[in-house]
């Protein structure tokens, strides 16, 4: 069969890879290069969407064996509904972002050549799809490295800034530590699948068929979870993420936060549910606990950021946490043999993965437009942009509402499903579990509320009020390419929010294959308008009616009150009669988060100083007041600094061996040979 999901998807990858070879020819014509390359990558993404949607919708599993790679170790490719789902998510966002990039990257014209950016952008897209396509450990790791390396170069794109080089370096180190863990995990599974005599164990098929002893399965799971968690930015392995994501060009940040993190989620789901298959419930508890920590800490750190893109990056940590909560719950319920709840939690997690791709992509694109227009990432210097950039502001607002889990947008649907999974959980025989469920629900609720505070702050400080900086630059609205990318993303946020039943019915097959039951069976009875995951009596939600209901009342009231025209007068702001109101008197991002900083301050490393400058008439009447605040991630000092110091210590000790004299090295070789001879006898 020529036309099948896997063929369509691999042709889209091929298209991207082949185009990379052509790029150097277009090097001298930058404008043409931008137009063709991003048009082409959006075309490739469209192909990927078609293949992915088809694979999930039809419940199709295709395989392909490519006779390339090492001799006798061909590459295996496979598309099943799970892979199809992630390919759809990846390609959907890359389609929007590619459209956006046509406008965005033109901002670099005349400032710096973008050839390298185009090359690595295409490689990055191809790498992400390849990771999901891979059906053997070898091809998986190669694709994983392509993805990591391409994104490393994208983070390095503006390499004249020291923070970019530092971030990229940190990123590549963490990515490789994670990759080693994944490699070891695959090694364990491959070794147990066929023994160490045969090489065929490296295919995922062999791992699927093998039954692992619990001890080794746990080791493989923990290694894989560590590796994927490092990539996904799960706290405490997250410190690279808020460094690396913000400094990349904004279209790349959108992809990195929106979908690259999802490949790690894909990895976790693939390894646990598919490759290992049978596992004890406490694996799920581990995933759940790390998810909860990431969700709460992620959003609290996001609340402390003044850099708009850094805020979004920390919020990705939070959302990865929420996805892991769903997956962790599903992993808890599966061994207890409650397939319906397991399916519900899994769908909640995956649905949030899709939602997060949409709104985080939208928000990063919006932040990119702001950066493009104002050359500013620091929120303390912004304000009032809603008047200059009405489109960007409205679209960014949709992203903010979605991510804050407010109906009728999409973030709410996945949060609602997660809550249902918590509330429907029966009392399990384990006391630890009894403690975990209520605490988990409480922390998810806390996360949602804090996220709303975080995004009121982000939107309010950036777009509302007056410009806070010294002088306002010439701000321009995003062009139509950028707008269209954002509009499409915003539309998908709305559609995923008001028509969740369609999407859940579409992806239900994944739950069927991984945990053995669908959740849609009950939702169909009550009509497509209502989301009723378990039973009509226990819970129902209709995003559509909420949307239309609010719209109806708003429109009705508006018209009733506007029967007689006029009645609005524009006047200057009331300044309490002082007449000296200026833009520095507005609430800033720092002051907005001050109460929350006081409440949750113990979680951060905060240094706060107030200095009075007494130069004036008298000490009691200071002229200036300097406020200094530094909020730092505690994990850097707790976890990363000791490791870094230890590795430097080890390398210094090892460095003692280096004498620089040939005699010393000869002695080392001699001793080694003697030792080896003595040992191998």
């Amino acid at each position, binding site marked *: 069969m020529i036309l099948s999901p896997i063929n369509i998807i691999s042709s889209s990858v091929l298209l991207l890879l082949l185009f990379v070879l052509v790029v150097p020819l277009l090097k001298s014509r930058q404008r043409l290069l931008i137009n063709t390359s991003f048009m082409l990558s959006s075309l490739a993404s469209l192909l990927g969407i078609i293949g992915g949607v088809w694979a999930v919708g039809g419940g199709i599993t295709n395989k392909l064996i490519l006779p390339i790679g090492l001799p006798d170790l061909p590459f295996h490719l496979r598309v099943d509904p799970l892979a199809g789902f992630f390919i759809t998510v990846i390609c959907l966002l890359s389609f929007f972002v590619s459209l956006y990039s046509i406008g965005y990257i033109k901002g670099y014209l005349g400032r710096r050549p973008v050839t390298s950016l185009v090359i690595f952008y295409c490689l990055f897209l191809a790498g992400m799809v390849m990771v999901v396509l891979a059906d053997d450990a070898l091809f998986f790791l190669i694709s994983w490295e392509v993805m990591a390396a391409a994104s490393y170069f994208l983070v390095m794109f503006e390499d004249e800034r020291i923070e970019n080089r530092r971030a990229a370096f940190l990123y590549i180190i963490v990515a490789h530590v994670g990759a080693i863990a994944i490699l070891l995990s695959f090694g364990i599974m491959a070794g147990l699948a066929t023994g160490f005599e045969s090489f065929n164990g490296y295919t995922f098929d062999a791992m699927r068929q093998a039954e692992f002893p619990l001890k080794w399965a746990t080791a493989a799971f923990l290694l894989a979870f560590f590796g994927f968690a490092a990539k996904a930015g799960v706290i405490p392995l997250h410190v690279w993420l808020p460094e690396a994501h913000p400094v990349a060009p904004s279209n790349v940040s959108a992809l990195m936060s929106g979908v690259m993190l999802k490949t790690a989620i894909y990895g976790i789901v693939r390894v646990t549910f598919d490759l290992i298959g049978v596992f004890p419930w406490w694996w799920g508890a581990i995933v759940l606990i790390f998810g909860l920590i990431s969700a709460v800490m992620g959003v609290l750190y996001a609340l402390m950021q003044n850099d708009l893109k850094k805020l979004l990056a920390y919020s990705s940590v939070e959302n990865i946490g929420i996805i892991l909560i769903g997956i962790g719950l599903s992993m808890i319920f599966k061994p207890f043999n409650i397939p319906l709840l397991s399916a519900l939690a899994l769908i909640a997690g995956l649905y949030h993965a899709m939602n997060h791709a949409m709104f985080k992509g939208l928000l990063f694109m919006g932040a990119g437009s702001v950066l493009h227009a104002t050359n500013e990432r620091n929120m303390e210097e912004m304000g009032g942009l809603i008047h200059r950039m009405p489109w960007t502001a409205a679209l960014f607002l949709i992203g903010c509402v979605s991510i804050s889990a407010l109906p009728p947008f999409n973030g709410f649907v996945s949060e609602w499903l997660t809550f249902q999974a918590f509330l*429907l959980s029966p009392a399990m025989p384990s006391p630890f579990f009894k403690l975990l469920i209520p605490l988990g629900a409480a922390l998810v609720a806390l996360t949602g509320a804090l996220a709303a*505070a975080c995004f009121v702050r982000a939107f309010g400080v950036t777009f509302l009020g007056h410009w806070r900086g010294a002088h306002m630059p010439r701000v321009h609205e995003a062009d139509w390419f950028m707008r269209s990318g954002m509009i499409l993303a915003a539309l998908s946020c709305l559609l995923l929010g008001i028509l969740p039943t369609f999407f859940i019915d579409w992806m239900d097959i994944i739950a069927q294959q991984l945990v053995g039951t669908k959740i849609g069976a009950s939702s169909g009875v009550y009509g497509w308008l209502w989301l009723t995951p378990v039973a009509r009596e226990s819970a129902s939600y209709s995003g559509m009616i909420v949307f239309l*209901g609010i719209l109806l009342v*708003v429109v009705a009231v508006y018209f009733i009150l506007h029967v007689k025209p006029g009645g609005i007068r524009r006047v200057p702001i009331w300044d309490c009669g002082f007449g000296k109101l200026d833009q520095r*008197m507005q609430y800033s991002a720092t002051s907005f988060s001050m109460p929350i900083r006081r409440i949750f301050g113990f979680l951060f490393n905060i240094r706060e100083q107030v200095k009075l400058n007494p130069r004036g008439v008298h000490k009691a009447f200071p002229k200036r007041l300097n406020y200094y605040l530094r909020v730092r991630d505690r994990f850097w000092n707790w976890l990363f600094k000791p490791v870094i110091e230890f590795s430097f210590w080890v390398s210094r000790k090892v460095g003692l061996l280096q004498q620089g004299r040939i005699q010393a090295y000869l002695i080392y070789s001699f001793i080694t040979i003697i030792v080896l001879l003595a040992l191998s006898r």
Partner: protein
Amino acid sequence: MKLYRFIIEFLQIAILLGVAPAFTGWVRMLKCWSQGRTSAGIFQPYRDLLKLFSKDVLLADNASWIFRFTPYLVFGTAVLAGGVIPMLSLDLPIASTADVIVLVALFAIARFFTALAGMDIGTAFGGMGSSREMTIASLAEPAMLMAIFTVSLASKSTSLSQMVHVIYSGQIVLRPSIAFSLFAFVLIALAETGRIPVDNPATHLELTMIHEAMILEYSGRHLALIEWAGMMKLFLFVMLGVAAFAPWGIAESGDLVTISAAFIFMILKLVIVGIVLVMIETGLAKMRIFRLTEFLGSAFLLATLGMLSYFILE
């Protein structure tokens, strides 16, 4: 029959719109009496609303569309929430649209946009109000969810009508978990509706106001909508608490006699809740904003304890 259900629905929304100001008037009247003042009567809120509706809107120069859109949205979410919470009858056609989680989120939308509107003008008070409101909400909202979750765990449903059904059928007796969550709910309701000791609805003192600070720049019909929605919110919280913890009187079927009985029960409950509210408000002083952490934190803890005790004891 179907039409009849919609008539009940509209009747309920009409009661919400009509009775909410009277309830606020009742609370204000009681408060005046308890403090030895003469009251303006139970109907003063209606007169206030009418006056505001007839006035011109004064809009600051740099107000954006968010500022103008917010009053309508706040009003819209309040009306929608009123259509979902069972006040008179359980048999509401749009009740299945939203369960308790959605209800809490509906209030959250209103808050989200009010906070944005507070920051829109760019004065210090607006931002201060928004910041405080979101801080309080970030503790109160999860506590609220947890309090209601405890009840819904016991009734195996998050749909309010279903929860009331289960309470009617006598499956819920007074349990420790419900007691915890009721106590937590009262604390949170005080915070969410901006009553003493969290916020004082009667003051415009810069340093202490929270909700009033966000809406300081509003005038005319915009302010009227927000004020009205605020009254509805107070009313709805009472109704929500009643539905979750003491639903007796709400009609299960929709005939005229039970509906009118339900209406009388509702008024009775409102009168009682008003008295209790005023007793709480006159008995307590407003807290400093950083003492609120303890207040809301304990509400959150109580609610979580309620859910924990459900899982461990039952």
